[in-house]
């Protein structure tokens, strides 16, 4: 990134500036810094696999396996929770299609679809993307998902917290829950739970 060689004073000034930015200004700022926005704009070269009005899929230049595709929204979003529902559908319909293409064209025996939200989850780019990775047996890609058994009490408390955060819709097996649909273009409410802008700021201003 461009700001890697700046002095601590400059970094502090920059961080101050970022803190005072409105969400719109922040997005503009991140967009300018974002290599993937430049790829989307055609300013940086890439091997494009698929493109439509909402998404671009390119080959990862440092792939886990040959054919590893980065699927990104053309709009700059730092993390998945910022993306509107309609675009989420579009992105993953495209991911499914890419996965199918891999099985048919490059002898993949399986695929992984991976999204990382936040640095702790392994996110490195500051632009939302889904990785679609072709897999073969013994291909050396080794994802580790440990199994941690939960106590009954923990299951209840964590489960109930999530249910509440999702709108508390699951009570009985026949409950007709609906995805809480956010009202269209509602201005962002600050101060509710975790601020997603903070998480994206971390990515943008690292």
């Amino acid at each position, binding site marked *: 990134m461009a700001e890697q060689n700046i002095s601590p004073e400059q970094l502090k000034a920059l961080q101050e500036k970022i803190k005072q930015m409105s969400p719109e200004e922040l997005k503009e700022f991140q967009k300018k810094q974002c290599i993937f926005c430049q790829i989307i704009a055609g300013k940086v070269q890439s091997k494009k696999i698929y493109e439509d009005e909402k998404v671009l899929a390119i080959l990862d230049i440092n792939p886990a396996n040959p054919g590893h595709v980065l699927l990104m929204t053309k709009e700059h979003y730092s993390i998945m929770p910022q993306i509107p529902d309609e675009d989420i*559908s579009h*992105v993953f319909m495209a991911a499914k299609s890419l*996965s199918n293409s891999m099985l048919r064209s490059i002898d993949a025996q399986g695929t992984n679809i991976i999204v990382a*939200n936040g640095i702790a989850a392994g996110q490195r780019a500051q632009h939302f993307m889904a990785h679609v990775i072709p897999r073969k047996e013994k291909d050396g890609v080794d*994802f580790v998902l440990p199994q941690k058994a939960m106590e009954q009490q923990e299951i209840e408390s964590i*489960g109930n917290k999530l249910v509440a955060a999702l709108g508390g819709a699951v009570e009985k*097996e026949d409950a007709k829950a609906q995805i809480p649909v956010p009202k269209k273009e509602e201005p962002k409410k600050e101060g509710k739970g975790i601020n997603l802008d903070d998480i994206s700021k971390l990515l943008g201003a690292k």
Partner: protein
Amino acid sequence: MAKNTCIICQIIGNSIPSKKIYEDEMVLAVLDVNGANPGHCFVMPKNHYPIIEQVPDIEIGRLFQVSNKISSAIFEALGAQGTNIFVANGIPAGQTVAHFMINVIPRKENDGINLQWQPRQLGEEEMSTVELKLKEQTKNMGHFEKEEKRPKVQVPKPVIFSEEEEEYFTRQMGRLP
């Protein structure tokens, strides 16, 4: 694996208990009680599809919307530092159950989970070959089924009567002249 022996279908049909996080007519999300981290959720279609290729677009859309909502809920309610959305298609990719599902995993630093890979350096020629092969397949891509067609959800409903019910029926039958 047949539908009636599928463990996920049994969870959906309530014959195996689970901690449900979200449910609608198309999607069920439950807590993985042996998860990679506390709060790890499975999001699955109620219809039985072994792999992603068989899941209709409209259901894919809904499944990932729900996964995204759960990811946000994990940030909000559990104070996670990150989340992963993880799908394994096929045994070589790590798929262990023959029912398509999406893993939504809360993350903290140094939590023992590794979804990283060793980056490979490919030659220009190999990259170009892969590019051409994939493009040949993706050139017709993009006709996604976005209209709400309301596909029929076939939740397996056991039509087995409980003992009391059976008794009731027998008694009723007995009353018939």
